Each structure stands twice: as structure tokens, then as C-alpha cells.
């Protein structure tokens, strides 16, 4: 059974230094609030796993939480580079960042294998690509039936998965819809999981086949309205594209990034405080 707890308690109890942590959400439902809480609690030496490390991983990496990144596409979608990710990879600031790089199809297969308790994911992938030359975790096997050469990648088995969803009920069953990415696979692949939600309701009212994570596969459910901002939660709020564009400037140099994180994330006690802080800053411009 999931416990319904405050986000700071969930991160304190479930995310440890040195953990393999997957914060998932494919453009939609990105768990920004949980990422900020990991920064506030100054977790270190994390292996961060995510198909599309974007602004939230840029913040975690720039804040010094990570020593390793497993990913398949790292950018600010539609805007450009992640400057903190690039600074860490290219210049080891604020700390060296080792990378394990895949293609999306490989990461998706690796999560599905993790959720299935299988040792590796299988795909018709990486054909002709240089990625297997730089990633020893991409290997090839022969199909025992046809002899076809197929790619194999080790299962992703995070210590902790963190996702954001639209709703939970009071027992901790979780409902999400819209673009659901690899969130279900990430939670089922992980040893522990945290789900932040827009609202907690008496009855999910979920139609058959909706994505429901039953309470007994989730450790902690936290009520964090707006917790996917500046990404979006379908049915609740739209993606704040302007924030993503502004992030390009904020993150471009180390000082402006550090000032931003110190003021708006480390200088606030929770996500509601963060939202007030950036609104105040915008009002002063």
C-alpha cells in the first residue's frame, strides 16, 4: 500500500545518496516538484536515468546531484541545448558526469525489461549506428529461431522511480492519461517509487484500460498541485513554452544558473514557494 505523505518526507525516506533514480515523463507530466526536492535535500552521486533529460535534469546536474546519466536524447525540446548538461560533460562543472547513451527504442526496451523482471531488453535497433562503439551496454545477439542479429540492452532497474500523475484516490491508486511515456514501466521496474499528483479524490472514475498504478506497487503518493510545471498535465494546465525558452538564458552561464537555483529552489521550502518566488521575480522585471 502506498502512503500518502508530504513530498519532502517521501524524498527524505526513499531517495538516498548514490541511488539510481529515474524521474520519467515524456514531455508531459514531468515531475519537476520532486526534482526540486531532491535538489533541496542535496542528494549526491546519483545515477540519473531518463529517456529525455530536459530542464529538470539540467537543474539536477547543475546543482551537483548527479555523477552519471543514462539517457537517449538530452536537450531543451524545441529550444536547443541543455547548457548545464553540456557544461558537465564538456568541462566537468560542477562535477564530472559520466554518460551512458542509448537510442529511445533501446531505453524503452530496457524499461520494459526492468518491469518484466527480465535481464535485458531486445530490439531491432542500433543498426549501423556508432552508439554501440561508445556504449558497452549495447550488444548484439542472434535470434535462436531465425538467426537475425538483434540488439540487447540491460534492463533498467532503478532504486527509485519518480513520476507525476493527474489523480490518486485516498488509498493511493494512481491514474494518469494522455502521453504516458514510460512511467508505468519505470515504476514497475524500480525497487521504490514516488508519485506526485495533481489531486487526491474519493473515486478515480477511471474508464477500463486507463493507466492505473495500483496502490500496492507504489511507495509514496504526494499531493503537489502544479507539480509538473513548466511541463504540463493534460486536463489541468498547458505546457509553459515561455519558461523553456527563458531557461536557455538562465542556464547559459554558471553564475546566473546558481543565482536562480539558490533563490528559487534552495531558497524556498516547497514547490508552492518556488512558484511564488518565480512569479515575484517575473513581476519585478
Amino acid at each position, binding site marked *: 500500500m502506498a502512503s500518502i505523505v508530504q513530498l519532502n518526507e517521501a524524498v527524505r525516506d526513499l531517495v538516498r545518496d548514490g541511488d539510481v533514480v529515474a524521474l520519467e515523463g*515524456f514531455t508531459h507530466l514531468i515531475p519537476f516538484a520532486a526534482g526540486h526536492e531532491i535538489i533541496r535535500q542535496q542528494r549526491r552521486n546519483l545515477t540519473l536515468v531518463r529517456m529525455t533529460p530536459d530542464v529538470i535534469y539540467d537543474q539536477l546536474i547543475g546543482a551537483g546531484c548527479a555523477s552519471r546519466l543514462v539517457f537517449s*536524447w538530452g536537450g531543451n525540446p524545441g529550444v536547443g541545448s541543455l547548457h548545464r548538461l553540456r557544461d558537465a*560533460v564538456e568541462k566537468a562543472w560542477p562535477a564530472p558526469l559520466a554518460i551512458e547513451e542509448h537510442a529511445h527504442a533501446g531505453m524503452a526496451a530496457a524499461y520494459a525489461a526492468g518491469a518484466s523482471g527480465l535481464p535485458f531488453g531486445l530490439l531491432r535497433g*542500433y543498426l549501423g*549506428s556508432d552508439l554501440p562503439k561508445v556504449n558497452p551496454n549495447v550488444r548484439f545477439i542472434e535470434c535462436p529461431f531465425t538467426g537475425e542479429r538483434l540488439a540487447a540492452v540491460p534492463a533498467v532497474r532503478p532504486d527509485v522511480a519518480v513520476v507525476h500523475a493527474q489523480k490518486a484516490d485516498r488509498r493511493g491508486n494512481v491514474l494518469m492519461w494522455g*502521453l504516458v511515456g514510460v512511467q508505468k514501466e519505470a515504476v514497475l521496474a524500480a525497487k521504490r517509487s514516488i508519485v506526485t499528483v495533481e489531486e487526491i479524490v474519493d473515486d478515480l472514475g477511471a474508464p477500463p484500460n486507463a493507466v492505473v498504478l495500483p496502490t500496492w506497487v507504489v511507495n509514496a503518493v504526494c499531493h503537489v498541485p502544479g507539480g509538473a510545471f513548466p511541463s504540463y498535465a493534460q486536463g489541468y494546465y498547458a*505546457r509553459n513554452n515561455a519558461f523553456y525558452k527563458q531557461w536557455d538564458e538562465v542556464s547559459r552561464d554558471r553564475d546566473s544558473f546558481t543565482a536562480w537555483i539558490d533563490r528559487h529552489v534552495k531558497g524556498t521550502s516547497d514547490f508552492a514557494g518556488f512558484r511564488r518566488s518565480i512569479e515575484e521575480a517575473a513581476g519585478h522585471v
Partner: protein
Amino acid sequence: MSETTYTSDEMMTIAAARMVRNGAALFVGIGLPSAAANLALRTHAPDTILIYESGTIGAKPTVLPLSIGDGELSETADSVVSVPEMFAYWLQGGRIDLGFLGAAQIDRYANINTTVIGDYHKPKVRLPGAGGAPEIAASCKEVLITLRQNNRAFVDTLDFVTSAGFLTGGDSREQLRFPGKGPTAVITDLGILTPDPVTKELTLTSIHPGVEVEAVRKATGWPLKVADTLDVTAPPTAHELSVLRDLQERTARAHAGQA
């Protein structure tokens, strides 16, 4: 022909859009490919099925998405599937007719690099990486590539092969038994390149109006092959231009309005 003026980027997007067959299931990359695909949907190819790797099948956005997973894509889609399902059942399952990719670098055999400029372990510029591209390039029945042509992008040797075109040319792609037949055209702001049927080397087969062949050669980092009979791309029609500009204006308004 009217004297309508247009930019080289508009010519590129319109030439790329024309390559889309009506009714094709189209796997779309963000940026230039997405603009071309959405233009095709609004002009000659209204039955095109737009598929974005975020999980949307049959998306019908009213403005160009900023990201691959904008809300409008999922709200307007015929079906929304998980990412593992997208890559396993739909892409590797061989259901996609046409993949539409961009790139930072391309070589003469239409292999593309979206990973790194410089050495992988000591990068000069770290690019976003592969995303869905290697399997889109391998598994779609056919692939189109669109990017601006200059000799930083059109290089003799890629710094990194992210996604395969025709590898080292000839039958080298067939030998690896790729499911799809590979790139059939590269559409740039200067012209259209297509692979030679035997050697698979990209050959300039169409040049955009007003562009000199010499300028295309200078923008290419290898000795460019030019077709014996070089076509001139039809200039944008007034209709194509007005649909594209309208789409881009609405897009700019939509993305600016959410501060």
C-alpha cells in the same frame, strides 16, 4: 509564374512537404521535418497520418508543436500509446511508411550525426543525441532528411554516425538487413539530393530557382555529384506560401503567449 518572393528556408520546407504522399503514415521529427509534414497535411496530403515519438498517432495540431509532446498533439490524436508500444509495435513492427528526420551533419551516403561535433569523449559541441532517429532511419519503409546545406553540415566524414543511411554505399545497407530501404531524398535550402541507384552516393538532382550549381558545390564538404539532367525545383505557389506563413504566424503567437 507569379513574382512572389520567398526565402530559401520557405523553399526548403515547401519542397520537403511536396515529397509527402497523401495517406502515408509519417513518423515526424521536431523542427524542420515537423513544419514540412504539417504543411503537407494542410495542402496536397490531408490524409497523412502524423506520428510523433511521444506516442501520438494521427495528430492534427493547429500550430507547430514546440516539443515532440505538446498537449495539442495528444488532444488531437486518433490514438495515444506508451513509448515502449510506439517503438515496438508501430516502428519496429514495420507500420510506418515514411520517416522524416533532421540532422546536424550528413555525409555523402546520407548517414547522419545528431550526437556530437568533435571527438565523442572530448566533444567540441555536445548535441542532444539519438532520440528515435536510429530506429526511424532503419525501420521506416522510406526516409526523408531535411537540413540546411553548408559545409559544416555536409561533411566528408561524420564525427559520429548516429543513424545509418547507406553506410559505406553500394549494398552495405542491404548486407546488414535493414527493414527499410533508407533515405530517398535529402531536401535542403539549395536543392534536392537523391541517392544514386547503384553507388548510393547523394547526387544533386534538383536545384532551387536562382541557386547556382557552384554555390551548392561550395556548400558541400565532398566533391558533389550533379545529375546530367538537373531539374529546377518548381518555385513555391502562392497557396503553399500563404498556408506556410499562416501556420508559422499562428505558431509564433501561440508559443509567445504563455509567459
